[in-house]
């Protein structure tokens, strides 16, 4: 295959050649999976039972020269990696510049580099597009989240929750990303796709900075590819719309000399679309219909879902009256629909914080509900229905020993009595009564016309 160029191949200027050599090596290292650790990761995937998260992590490949690899997950690289890669590219550029005195231009390489970057960027942006399109990335707040003070969340969490309350908007944002990705799969529409990503992911980058998100570097990585892709048409567009002068179009086009080239191209494109659109889309949809990946799967104690007022509370048989200063006393207790109990106390806690998008498999590891959220202790629990006992374990990784074993009785459908021991073998006794709580967030969502005047 060759790249046709209707214009005689004009020689590039020296600085253009040097810059190109640098970016060629730089982007090659950034996007081509050369990192051996990555293959170790690929082998750790259970291909027979492929999860959407497996494809998601594949889409997020970035070389991690300086980082360490933990089996089963593929993280994101850092600015230190970028620096190392830039250094390698500089060295490569020097060697290349010394040894290659003949080349007049790099039209061929430029074309293929763009193909590579187009696909890399498309895969990356579509992966995030689908987990928004099927609103998974930002979940609707849990009952515990709804009953946490605004000031008791960190910025990242508030960003996620604020998006989580409007799944329709999240779908729209996902659609924009998917469309931008699709535009990148075709040479002629590349500039438009890249422009959308520049505006969209540029905003994501700044949001990451502002909200202390953990994906600033990765979004900048995507933006940098988008900028490189736009560069190709930038001068032409500038001449047309700003200088308002006639413009020659791009003259570099692939010419297919053999049928296998044409077919090979179609097969490759088809495979990418199948794997990262069809298969991945199907898997994300499946994850969506199973209630997402942020919250645990297992169902909680039957009929317990809701928030409870703690009317009586005893520690070691000592009654603690209600108080807003007693750090030992439970203020209220939430039973989620799934196997999580959260307890509000006035004890200061160390925050558990995750600010990148992760999709843990095990219920206990699904810590979205407590990530970046203060004011409450979150417990994962298992139910021994025969003996009516709940085994609670604090999900916050800073409190691994915080465990409770509580026997439960249900005098009526709206009350629960819990009694048992905590990890220090202190006895705990609490009488819970369900609060009929109406949330303004939900009431107001029913429409302005039925506006609520009191709550």
């Amino acid at each position, binding site marked *: 295959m060759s790249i046709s160029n209707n214009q005689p191949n004009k020689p590039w200027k020296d600085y253009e050649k040097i810059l190109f050599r640098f970016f060629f090596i730089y982007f090659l290292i950034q996007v081509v999976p050369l990192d051996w650790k990555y293959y170790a990761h690929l082998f750790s995937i259970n291909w027979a039972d492929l999860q959407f998260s497996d494809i998601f992590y594949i889409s997020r490949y970035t070389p991690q020269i300086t980082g360490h690899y933990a089996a089963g997950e593929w993280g994101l690289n850092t600015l230190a990696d970028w620096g190392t890669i830039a250094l390698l590219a500089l060295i490569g550029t020097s060697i290349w510049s010394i040894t290659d005195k003949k080349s007049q231009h790099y039209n061929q390489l430029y074309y293929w580099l763009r193909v590579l970057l187009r696909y890399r960027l498309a895969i990356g942006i579509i992966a995030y597009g689908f987990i928004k399109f099927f609103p998974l990335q930002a979940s609707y707040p849990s009952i515990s989240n709804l009953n946490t003070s605004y000031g008791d969340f960190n910025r990242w969490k508030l960003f996620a929750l604020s998006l989580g309350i409007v799944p329709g908007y999240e779908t729209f944002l996902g659609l924009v990303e998917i469309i931008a990705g699709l535009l990148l799969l075709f040479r002629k529409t590349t500039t438009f796709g890249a422009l959308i990503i520049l505006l969209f992911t540029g905003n994501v980058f700044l949001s990451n900075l502002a909200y202390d998100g953990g994906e600033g570097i990765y979004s900048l990585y995507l933006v940098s590819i988008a900028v490189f892709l736009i560069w190709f048409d930038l001068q032409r567009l500038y001449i047309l719309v700003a200088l308002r002068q006639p413009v020659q179009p791009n003259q570099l086009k692939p010419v297919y000399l053999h049928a296998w080239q044409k077919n090979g191209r179609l097969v490759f494109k088809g495979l990418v679309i199948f794997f990262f659109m069809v298969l991945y889309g199907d898997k994300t949809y499946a994850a969506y219909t199973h209630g997402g990946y942020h919250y645990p799967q297992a169902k909680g104690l039957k009929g317990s879902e809701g928030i409870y007022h703690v009317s009586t509370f005893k520690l070691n048989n000592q009654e603690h009256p209600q108080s807003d200063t007693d750090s030992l006393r439970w203020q209220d207790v939430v039973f989620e629909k799934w196997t999580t109990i959260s307890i509000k106390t006035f004890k200061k806690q160390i925050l558990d914080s995750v600010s990148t998008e992760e999709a843990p498999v095990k219920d206990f590891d699904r810590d979205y509900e407590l990530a970046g959220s203060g004011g409450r202790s979150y417990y994962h629990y298992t139910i021994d229905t025969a003996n009516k006992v709940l085994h609670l374990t604090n999900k916050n990784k800073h409190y691994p020993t915080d465990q409770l074993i509580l026997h439960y009785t249900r005098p009526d459908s709206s009350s629960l009595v819990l009694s048992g021991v905590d990890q220090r073998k202190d006895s705990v006794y609490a009488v819970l009564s369900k609060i009929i709580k109406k949330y303004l*967030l939900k009431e107001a969502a029913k429409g302005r016309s039925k506006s609520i005047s009191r709550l």
Partner: protein
Amino acid sequence: MSNKETIINVADSDNQVHQIQDNLLPSNHQKEQPVERKGWTFGQKFALRVSVIFFLIMSIPTSWDWYKNLFGINWFSIHYRDIYDIARFNPNIFQFSPKYGLLGYSEWLAILGVAIVGALIWTSIERKPKLNYDSLYYWIRVVVRYRAGIGIIGFGYTKLFPTQMPYPSLGLLNTNFGDMTAQKIYWLSVGIVPWYQVFAGLVELAAGTLLFFRKTTTLGAVLLLGALGDITYVNFAYDGGVHIYASYFVLFAVFLLWYDAQPIYNLIIRERFTLPRVYYPKLSEKWQRYTRIGLKVATIWIFLIYLFYAEVLNFKYDPYKQPAMKGVSVLRGNYHVSEFKINNQPVAYSSIDSVRWRDVAFEKWSTLTYNVNRPVKLDLSNGGGSPMRDINRTFELTGAAGGKRVFYYDADTINHVLYLQDKYVAAIKRDKGKGKKKDAANADHKKGDKNWIPKEALANIGDENLKIGAAALSTRRSRGIVEEQKDKRKRNHMILKYSTTDGNHVILTGVNDQKDSVYIVLDRYKRDYVLKDSKLVAGKY
């Protein structure tokens, strides 16, 4: 990579692009004929006529209030809102009721109807010596560029100096997430990151400024479309209430982009040699050139420079969505209620008690807020507008529930008495131009007790107009405060005497809004919020 060789300089010619001779075109160009601009077809002319009428009506202020504001401005004692109100207006000829028919777009549709009828009449009466349609297109684009540019800059500045989305007050920080409307949550989600708001303001400001210049118009329109397209969707999603005005800019941006859409499509997608549309009017007369420069300079001076100055003052001394006056200095922060007596009866702490105060906070401004476990009336507006009096600045209570009470206070700091008024008050029906009915509606509210604050205390309290930084005093503020003081809607009020030495331990005694005597002991505590605050803070307290 360079196309410089093929550039044909037509910048100084007047719409003569199709006269470029063939021999100037690159000889190896695949025999594609450049897409030449043909004359105006009937359909294009008709569409332009409709567009001209439509966008003219959309761009001309038709409300009496707009002109009243414009001619009432004291340019030597400026308030940001004076200029903002010039920049911000919606078409309002028809004012359909209900307001939200067709999602609120009925006004636009009616104007479109007028434009089509107008274009039909225009078509039927247009005589032979034809209008120059290139010129017409050029001038309507000038109108649209400036209207959109000025409008978005008005908005951009309230973000560049982050006042549009205030940082949450203590009362809001202490409100549960589920006790807020989606609209409130969106507003706050931007308010917590003032630097991000600055960035959003920069984008809007850049978009607007780029629209003032022909060469950068398309870039400005792309930015405007991207930013306001998102804001429109956000307003639908979060019930933000300003989707109409946001989509107004989307419409204007799309109209401006239309001009270059076909050439760009031709260049990038079809990969053909492309001639841009070029038409610059000849301003041959001196006065024409001076008028053009004069208008341009005036626009830039008023909306970029003078508004900048006014916004700085607003941000520093009078952030328009939060109260501007300092609260009592010793009374600030979060308080536990250690003791609570009502009519001499002590009430023990309970999170579900309907009388006992919880989560008491004195803001850094003149507000006391607390929660009780009792349904209270809600204000679901967005807490915006441009009230001058602190008591009418309601962002800290709108869209928030959970038994939250918010009181504005006037402090007699000599006798240590707070005169508190409920910031919640039944909304006035704001039917513009029906002023007399307004008064009638107010008659429903029993006249508030006029003299509930003794004269002596009033003297100690002082003039609220002068209680902000002197640099920010303005004619608009003085007039506005007088005007708003005429509002006689009844508010709940309390009179509480406070005694404290350093503010850590405070005793409030007096009469609450139910005329019950209360005795409340408050102890200050430092609440360590998880939410990290920003150093970029509006107002001086």
